[in-house]
């Protein structure tokens, strides 16, 4: 629907703008940038910073443009001495309550507060520091660290957590100068309903929420001659890491990524996409089995660990709907330390599996106590020296952390040659790369399930209905004259809607894909900052381009997957799969 246009006067010139939009957005539409800090599109406008102030004719006070709507013939001024001074003062007051830690901060050079201080010309400290006590960090989460000292109370994290994710793990506590963002009873994110999705860390303008970094442990392992380091990269890294290294949004850099990682000194560079194909084999057969034997339907995908924690907290009665398949990250870890270790003649206790994920919740997933199948596998075969156990995946890095490791070595990323993944855990299909976009797991599963169930070849492998950024997508496929309805949801808010339907017994679907983050993994909480809808769309385009580049586009046609079943797993849902590739879930309190 077209919005009505009205005339307003900005800095003495007439412009036609949408009626009802804010002054800030109206100006942006016509190419005039108003500096702002707390405001973020689609996320929050608690109008706390007053950086976006402008003059409106008739108003004595300066007006906060992010929260003030335009009206017909409004006359505004965006640049005057008074405005410039006010903005600077407001910013200096915020900085007076902020540590001068830029040199040691995770967000150094990628911080909205720092950038604004530079842009608005802050060069001196005119105000005495107002933060007198250093507040403790919240390090209770396996995925994130919150530093309340760096928080400017913009509300973005609270609003994302509540409105996009409907998790509500955090809110403001106290009042006035003592206000802080915190969890229930100040117990910390790790003891809360937080899903570790990291969306709050993506929108935070400062370094107040960052991922818990594993980089130093990884450097140590890389340089340890006794340790064999195996790294896996998720689908969404190849369309994110280039961006984090200064290339254009969504740059598709699979070959450079492999070359760069190899330069860091990892012993083998493998691909999570290999186990994404494997996930499709297992999950596809699980779906077929559930449909044919009257199992619990709809079946829901299980690769998004934030989503898993969400359902464990909020919908424990629906856990039987979740596929028992582990995520590709965990399938990889279990295989690397069993099948691959055996093949390569490696001691499983000396292998370290490191993954690069677009996701902060993957750190949590790797730490889940049940994720140690390889340990049990070897224990049963009595081949272990160390009896205390080890995880299948040792460390999960975010895209941002991989970029940090690249920078530490001075790598010229854009100038790298293209290299190939190592084998045998490096070969994948187009069905695997699309796991990185919302709808991708569904599309990949349909490509395989359709062909397995009908015994025929698909004329067209693309399922357009499940692509795109719509919050909930639906499709119906005809399988041997039987219509099968499926749905795809991204963000936990949309997942909640589908779960409510299931709870009420009204869900018409056989299969549902859920990804916790907006846009799917390509918009994950570990991806480069900023991540906006415009950027998500560019990343998605690259993902679908890579689907075509890979040639083979169906998981069951991956020759390495076929070999894995022939030589080791025997068949999908078989005995070994059951032990290594499947898992179970448990209720968690709220």
């Amino acid at each position, binding site marked *: 629907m077209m919005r009505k246009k009205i005339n307003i006067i900005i800095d003495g010139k007439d412009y036609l703008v949408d009626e009802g939009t804010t002054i800030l957005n109206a100006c942006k539409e016509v190419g005039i940038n108003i500096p702002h800090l707390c405001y973020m599109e689609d996320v929050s406008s608690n109008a706390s910073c007053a950086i976006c102030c402008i003059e409106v004719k008739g108003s004595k006070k300066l007006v906060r443009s992010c929260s003030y709507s335009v009206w017909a013939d409004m006359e505004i001024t965006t640049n005057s001495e008074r405005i410039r001074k006010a903005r600077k003062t407001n910013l200096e007051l915020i900085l007076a309550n902020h540590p001068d830690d830029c040199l040691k901060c995770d967000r150094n050079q990628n911080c909205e507060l720092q950038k604004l201080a530079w842009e608005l010309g802050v060069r001196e400290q005119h105000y005495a520091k107002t933060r007198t*006590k250093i507040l403790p960090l919240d390090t209770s989460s396996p995925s994130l660290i919150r530093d309340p000292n760096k928080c400017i109370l913009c509300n973005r994290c609270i609003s994302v957590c*509540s409105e996009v994710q409907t998790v*509500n*793990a*955090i*809110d*403001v*506590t*106290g*009042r006035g100068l*003592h206000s802080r963002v*915190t*969890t*229930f*009873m100040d117990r910390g994110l790790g003891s*809360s*309903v937080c899903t570790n999705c990291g969306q709050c860390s993506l929108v935070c303008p400062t370094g107040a929420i960052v991922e818990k970094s594993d980089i130093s442990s990884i450097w140590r392992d890389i340089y340890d001659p006794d340790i064999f380091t195996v790294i896996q990269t998720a689908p969404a890294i190849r369309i994110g890491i280039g961006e984090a290294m200064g290339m254009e949004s969504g740059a598709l850099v699979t070959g450079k990524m492999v070359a760069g990682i190899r330069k860091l000194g990892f012993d083998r560079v493998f691909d999570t996409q290999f186990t994404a194909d494997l996930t499709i084999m297992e999950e596809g057969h699980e779906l077929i089995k559930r449909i044919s034997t009257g199992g619990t339907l709809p079946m829901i995908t299980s690769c998004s660990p934030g989503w898993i924690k969400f359902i464990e907290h909020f919908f424990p009665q629906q856990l039987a709907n979740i596929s028992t398949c582990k995520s590709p990250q965990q399938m990889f870890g279990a295989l690397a330390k069993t099948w691959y270790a055996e093949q390569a003649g490696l001691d499983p206790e000396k292998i370290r599996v490191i993954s690069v994920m677009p996701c902060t919740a993957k750190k949590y997933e790797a730490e889940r106590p049940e994720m140690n199948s390889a340990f049990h596998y070897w224990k049963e075969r009595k081949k272990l020296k160390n009896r205390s156990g080890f995880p299948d995946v040792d460390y999960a890095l975010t895209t941002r952390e991989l970029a940090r490791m690249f920078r530490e070595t001075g790598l010229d990323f854009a100038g790298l040659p293209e290299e190939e993944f190592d084998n045998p855990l490096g070969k994948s299909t187009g069905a695997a790369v699309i796991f990185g976009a919302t709808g991708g797991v569904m599309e990949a599963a349909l490509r395989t399930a359709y062909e397995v169930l009908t015994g025929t070849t698909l004329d067209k492998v693309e399922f357009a209905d499940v692509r795109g950024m719509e919050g909930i997508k639906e499709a119906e496929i005809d399988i041997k004259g039987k219509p099968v309805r499926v749905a795809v949801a991204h963000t936990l808010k949309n997942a909640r809607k589908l779960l409510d339907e299931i709870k009420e017994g009204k869900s018409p679907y056989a299969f549902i894909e859920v990804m916790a983050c907006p846009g799917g993994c390509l918009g994950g909480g570990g991806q480069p900052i900023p991540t906006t809808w415009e950027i998500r769309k560019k990343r998605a385009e690259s993902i679908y381009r890579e689907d075509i580049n890979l040639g083979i586009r169906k998981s069951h046609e991956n020759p390495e997957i076929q070999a894995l079943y022939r030589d080791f797993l025997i068949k999908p849902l078989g005995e070994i799969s059951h032990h290594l590739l499947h898992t179970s879930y448990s209720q968690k309190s*709220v």
Partner: protein
Amino acid sequence: MKSSKVQQIDNSLYDSIIAGYRGKPGDLLSVLEDIQTATPHSYLTEPAIRYVAEKMKVPLSRIYSVITFYSFFNLNPQGDHTVTVCRGTACHTRGSRALLADIMIKLGLNEEETGGETSYTTDDMRFTVRTVACFGQCALAPVIAVDGVIFSHMTSEKLEAIIKKLSSAKKPVRRRNP
């Protein structure tokens, strides 16, 4: 938290309080206030908060935000008597700091350095000492409130007498905190 003093309250009481405010504006505040008043030692227990969260469909983080915003909500059991010391500027310049120190020593309490308003309760649950940012009674500084009643131009001697009297009283009078 002095868990030994926690008394289990029947959920039906919470239910009737919640039902009484259903659909009314500000229902959450009213419910929490009534529950606190009905709870021995005048505070909000975690089971009570969780119950309210579940029944009223309010996130725990939100309730915690509300509780910590208003100083009249308590998260810890309160003593039979509450002495509130004003820490406003006027009271401060007229010796509220020393008054606070005095009463803490007399009641055998240890003061911890914290940022905001604080609250300490004696082990026998007889007294709670709290501080507030300002009573807004600066003309009468230094000001102290005892069980909600304001005492002006307070001195250590006067305060000691008040405490003595309260300590010897057989039956403590229950009141809401200021």
